[in-house]
């Protein structure tokens, strides 16, 4: 099985987001591998361990994204590739999916692509399905379990998380799968993996090197991030001569406030 897992370097989930001069900023928050991508890496590694082959970690981002790739290598991925180009800075998921699809085609012979369900910085959750569309492969989103995988027959059966429960889906391979946290428990990087990752040479591909002669303009922009309105709380004591009277007054107030 030739597996690609897409990872993104994101701010730590505890980071506070702000917009300064029209640019999104997470301040000096530590950067980590997108937590959802760890589930994708884990599943990619488990698939390789069960069926053989290799796992390539792929990231699109600035030089700092190298650290997310090192984390994936330290967990056990065999190789890592960074796609980095100033022309790609600030692009939306539609552009990202095009670049990733081109990189995956350049890698060649890929049977499965794993992604996290969404990135914790932009939270769009559409890169995976868009990538599948770009590749012309089935999109198996929100995968909570892989029930069967037949590499020879090139088919896979998964359980998808849906509001009503779990949906069993059978699909041919190659396919793009997005991972949710019910899928597995990501392993910690091992010391041996850390040593290997720190010495690894990670090739950097430009947009041109993945075959894009021109980078499409981003359609979406983030002109502003609006913080949720502050919740003001005030305390009001409802009194009554008897508990029944107090309860009736409370019910009236709740109706008046449109709570009930």
């Amino acid at each position, binding site marked *: 099985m030739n597996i690609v897992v897409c990872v993104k370097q994101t701010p730590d989930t505890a980071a506070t987001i702000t917009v300064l001069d029209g640019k999104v900023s997470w301040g000096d928050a530590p950067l980590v591998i997108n937590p959802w991508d760890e589930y994708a890496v884990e599943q990619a590694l488990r698939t390789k361990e069960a069926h053989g082959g290799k796992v390539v970690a792929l990231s699109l981002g600035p030089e700092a994204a190298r650290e997310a790739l090192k984390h994936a290598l330290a967990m056990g991925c065999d190789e890592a590739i960074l796609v980095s180009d100033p022309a790609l800075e600030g692009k939306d998921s539609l552009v990202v999916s095009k670049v990733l699809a081109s990189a995956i085609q350049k890698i060649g012979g890929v049977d499965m692509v794993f992604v996290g369900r969404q990135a914790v910085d932009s939270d769009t959750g559409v890169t995976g399905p868009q990538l599948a569309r770009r590749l012309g492969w089935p999109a198996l989103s929100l995968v909570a379990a892989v029930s069967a995988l037949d590499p020879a027959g090139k088919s896979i059966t998964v359980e998808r998380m849906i509001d009503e429960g779990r949906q069993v889906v059978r699909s041919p391979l190659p396919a793009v799968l997005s991972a949710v946290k019910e899928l597995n428990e990501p392993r910690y990087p091992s010391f*041996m993996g850390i040593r290997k990752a*720190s010495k690894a040479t990670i090739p950097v591909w430009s947009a041109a090197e993945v075959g894009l002669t021109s980078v499409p303009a981003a359609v979406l922009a983030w002109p502003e991030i609006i913080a949720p309105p502050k919740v003001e709380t005030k305390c009001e004591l409802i009194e009554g001569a008897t508990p029944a009277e107090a309860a009736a007054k409370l019910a009236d107030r709740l109706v008046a406030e449109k709570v009930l």
Partner: protein
Amino acid sequence: MDFSLSSEHEMVQKMVRDFARSEVAPTIRDWDRKQEMAPETLPRMAALGLLGVCIPVRYGGQGMDYIALGLVCEELEAVDSTLRVVMSVHMGLNSLGLLQWGTEAQKQLYLVPQARGERYAGFALTEPGVGSDVARMASTARRVGEEYVLNGEKMWISLATKAHHVLWFAKSDTDAADPHESITAFILETDRPGVTRGDIHGKLGVRAGSTGWIACQDVRLPAANRLGEEGEGFKIAMACLDNGRYTVAAGAAGLIRASLEASIRYAGERQAFGHTIDRFQLIQQKIALMVRDYEAARLLYLRAGWMKNRGQRNTRETSLAKWYATDASFQAASEAIQVHGAYGYSDEYDVERYLRNARGAMIYEGTSEIHQLMQAGYALGLRQDAALRRELPAFDAEAWQAEA
């Protein structure tokens, strides 16, 4: 001069932090209340490779350097001191002692399974009647042919009931003119006939850890289990303490950091007089002191680790780091309780556990008073370190990471 950590070190830091936060933090209060070590603690630390972190790969370890050991200890103690105590005794006091003093056969037999986490290791020096005054120990080792016969009792021994091997110190020559030259070190398997042991309960802190006693009654030990030369035990014990104290110093830096982070979090939420309390200068002063002490403690232990990497003798620097960091960690935890007010006094918040845990480190592995005497001794020219027959090997990435 380069103060930055390598990306390898940063990955180690993150891995250990994630482990401690996700697997230990959620239940540590319950185990602390029960005064028991969580049964999964040691197997998980072993599975992650922590028990062999800075031992060469050819001896079953992970091949990282001494700085990585310090970072591991800082991250572990930022969640609970009991985890760091495991590193102090298993790695600092025992495994690094074997790396420094052991014969090749001893390394293969004892260090390899310890570094792989298949065997746990401890350090048995302190006795019921002897702490700082090591040379007055009562335990004896009598040579009989190709064996030694051990008798005596050791007290306040971390992992006493968990360790498979302990370094055991006993007087092999009760008539020696200099009592320091009367002590010999041994590698003792705790399943030998005549070894009994038990846990101690009712401690102020490190309650989720294992601390106990070990007694030897006519325990027969092959002469091959002797570590170093006869009469070299005091020097071996002190050399082991150079490594144990390093882990304690690094851990104490983690405890200061934990106190600081808890204080910042709480002070940013708690309201008084119409403001969050982090707006008040007396709270800010406590935060500032914790920042100062964390950074100073961290720099002191990292310097000691850097010297270990280079193979430089670091008894003075390690003692200074241990003394400063442990005293400061107790102060930081105490101030963190003050920031938390009455909530800090209950175990609803972690800071009261930090305070109880910090207190012991001012006593074990050299009391704060011993370290002050050492520092004064160095400064006044009354004390200097003589070269050892065998020094702790300098870190050599290639040698450490070679398979054989």
